[in-house]
């Protein structure tokens, strides 16, 4: 058992037994060695289920939305990306800070479970794509930080290369690329369901009136869906990479989100989401001196 | 404390007493000045008038050498200081400029360390209270006109030093050594730079208004931090006086000379004998040349 896990259990035990919190959200070891699904712990004796390893992918923040009416205080473990999700939900008025005990776990970067499939436990596994360029491995909001912060890596991620590649293409080539990608979409909405920025009570894609999204599963509707989602999370996406990780069809969704985030930074100045609660989302305010292209 | 030291061309010729007094005083104040080896001329006061890149590159070579040694740079000459600051700002401002400069000088220079005027070093690194405690010949009753000229304070966004309209560092240092700085309106007026030499019909008039201003303010002497200003004000004083049928009798000092005097140094060590307007006689009259027994050097 690693030191991290020890520390997690220690704190969880203390919080539960002292009655400070009535529920702890963490990760446990699943049936497969390369999966560490979320676990909800309300009894002290279950604290032993908690673990931290390189497969704790799930962003626990989103689960808090299902617990808004939970009567007691909830402790939740957050990696850097998860902590930004917490801020996302706080800023969107979806959860209440005073009902949370946030435990920060600086994240050393996770492994790619898809690469582990079929391998033996302990085998060499690739790093997870979403962690490759993570700029915020250390939690940005927490009540307790479980261990020392980790250094930020600055390597260039594959997604950046993909964006650069797409940028260098002609419009038709780009269109062809995305056609190929979106044609695969099976409209399972996993991307939306996992996304901390997608926190509407009722998604516009599920509405019959207005009929934003047609029921037919075709390329055009898929394009509508993904572009609309890109605009809805524009300036709000915390770049956790969960959408792309959970996509069963491996559509490179983060290329879109990263590209939009970069455009926004270029146009309106750096405004990475989920870092500062006081900073309003860039499409929710304006500056008189914004770039002017429409004269 | 250790600083790289860039004396510049003037301090080995016309401004030799600035160098002498600086080095003498620095020892007393506990400043370790490391002269940049094989330094070259910074290009003031001509390069920036004719060629932008050259004006940035000449100081950059010196700065690069200091940066290799990992030191902030102390610059006594106001003109050199202005050029160094301009280079520092340009390199900080643009990676592109930096690359061009590095290419031209054939050395790496990232502007990691700060260029400081010697005044800045005295007031903010050494500190006025430190100077005050080391004084053993307070220059009481000496009325000085602090003269800053242009280059220390302008352009302010580059020099980032003192106030562009009402600088006070020399005033503060003078007060610390017991002298009395007078208030006058010519603190930052231009002495004409090369004009008194090159276009004397213009330059000498510029100097005249400064002498007149100091005299009107009741000053006994002028104190400066710029070798060009001093040379102009000192060397041309007699000539300007003759042109205007007067004698100004305003000795011109480097602030380091007066600090050195107050700290108890011998006037000859400080180079006070090297002025055109007779400074020694003046100081003697004022009673500031009586030997001092126990000079306290800072360790």
């Amino acid at each position, binding site marked *: 058992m690693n030191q991290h896990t020890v520390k997690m259990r220690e704190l969880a035990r203390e919080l539960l037994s002292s009655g400070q919190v009535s529920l702890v959200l963490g990760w446990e070891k699943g049936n497969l060695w390369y999966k560490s699904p979320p676990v909800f712990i309300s009894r002290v004796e279950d604290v032993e289920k908690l673990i931290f390893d390189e497969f704790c992918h799930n962003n626990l923040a989103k689960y808090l939305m299902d617990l808004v009416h939970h009567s007691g205080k909830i402790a939740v473990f957050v990696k850097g990306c998860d902590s930004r999700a917490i801020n996302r939900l706080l800023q969107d008025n979806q959860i209440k800070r005073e009902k949370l005990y946030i435990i920060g776990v600086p994240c050393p970067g996770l492994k790619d479970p898809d690469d582990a499939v079929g391998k033996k436990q302990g085998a060499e596994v690739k790093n997870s794509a979403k962690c490759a360029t993570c700029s915020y491995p250390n939690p940005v909001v927490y009540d307790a930080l479980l261990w020392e912060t980790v250094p930020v890596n600055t390597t260039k991620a594959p997604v950046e290369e993909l964006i650069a590649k797409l940028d260098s293409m002609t419009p038709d080539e780009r269109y062809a690329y995305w056609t190929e990608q979106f044609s695969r979409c099976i409209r399972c909405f996993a991307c939306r369901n996992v996304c901390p920025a997608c926190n509407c009570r009722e998604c516009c894609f599920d509405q019959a009136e207005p009929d934003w999204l047609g029921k037919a599963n075709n390329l055009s509707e898929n394009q509508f869906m993904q572009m609309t989602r890109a605009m809805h999370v524009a300036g709000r996406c915390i770049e956790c990479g969960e959408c792309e990780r959970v996509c069963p069809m491996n559509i490179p969704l983060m290329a879109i989100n990263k590209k939009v985030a970069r455009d926004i930074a270029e146009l309106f100045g750096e405004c990475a989401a989920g870092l500062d609660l006081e900073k309003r989302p860039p499409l929710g305010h304006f500056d008189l001196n914004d770039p002017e292209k429409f004269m | 404390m250790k600083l790289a030291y860039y004396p510049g061309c003037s301090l080995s010729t*016309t401004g030799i007493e600035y160098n002498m007094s600086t080095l003498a005083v620095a020892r007393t104040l506990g400043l370790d000045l490391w002269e940049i080896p094989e330094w*070259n001329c910074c*290009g003031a006061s001509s*390069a920036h008038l*004719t060629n932008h*890149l050259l004006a940035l590159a000449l100081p950059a070579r010196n700065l690069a050498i200091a940066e290799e040694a990992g030191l902030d740079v102390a610059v006594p000459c106001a003109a050199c200081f202005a050029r160094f600051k301009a280079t520092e700002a340009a390199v900080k401002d643009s990676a592109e400029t930096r690359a061009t400069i590095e290419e031209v000088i054939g050395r790496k220079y990232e502007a990691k360390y700060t260029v400081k005027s010697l005044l800045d070093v005295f007031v903010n690194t050494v500190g006025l209270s430190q100077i005050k405690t080391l004084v053993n010949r307070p220059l009481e009753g000496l009325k000085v006109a602090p003269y800053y000229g242009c280059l220390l304070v302008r352009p302010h966004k580059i020099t980032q030093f003192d106030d562009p309209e009402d600088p006070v560092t020399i005033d503060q240092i003078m007060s610390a050594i017991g002298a009395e700085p007078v208030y006058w309106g010519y603190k930052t007026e231009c002495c004409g730079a090369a004009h008194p030499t090159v276009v004397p*019909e213009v330059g000498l008039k510029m100097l005249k208004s400064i002498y007149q201003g100091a005299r009107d303010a009741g000053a006994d002497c002028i104190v400066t931090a710029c070798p060009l200003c001093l040379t102009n004000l000192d*060397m041309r004083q007699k000539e300007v006086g003759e042109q205007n049928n007067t004698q100004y009798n305003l000795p011109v000092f480097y602030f380091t000379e007066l600090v050195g005097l107050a700290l108890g140094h011998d006037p000859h060590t400080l180079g006070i*004998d090297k002025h*055109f307007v007779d400074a020694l006689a003046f100081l003697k009259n004022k009673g500031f040349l009586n030997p001092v027994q126990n000079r306290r050097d800072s360790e």
Partner: protein
Amino acid sequence: MLKNLEEVRVFMERINLTPGLAQAKPIRDSLKEHCGTDVGRCYQCGKCTAGCPVAFAMDYTPREIVRLLQLGLKEEALKSKTIWLCATCDTCSTRCPREVEPAKLMEGLRQEAKAKGLVADKRLDLFNDLFLQLVEKYGRVHEMGLILKFNLLSAQPLKDAGHGPGMFLKGKINPLPHTIKDNGEVKQIFARVRALGGEGK
């Protein structure tokens, strides 16, 4: 100062604005690019001139130079003594309410005037050239040599002769040029700047 009636007449001649105004915009744009300052912003308040320590000797005041440029009369500005007399003390730029920087403008105009052979005061130009020649040659400035050479070349060999011996006696002027041991590096800098066309923005 105007010497005779002839000069008065020429000086006061009516200017036809039409050709100049056609040039005003490109002139403004090129100055913005080369000097980093925008003459179009000037509203002719005269604060630059009011504080200029050299204005008394100029043929056009700094404000008037800007006005000439606003009207597209750049040739006139290039031929003026003003641009050579500016001591670059930056008082004007520091106080300008419209953030125009006349001192930078003068620098740019000098460079252009020189390129076009329109140097109105040869002495200042000569001085700058000599200065840089010395730096290139020796790495440092030899001030005695500079002044002597300047006086010689500006045809006033005895101008500062009165000061020379005084300086010499006071140990202020080294009779021999001082230099840095290996000046190859400084010479390289000059060479590379020339190779880059002299402009390094």
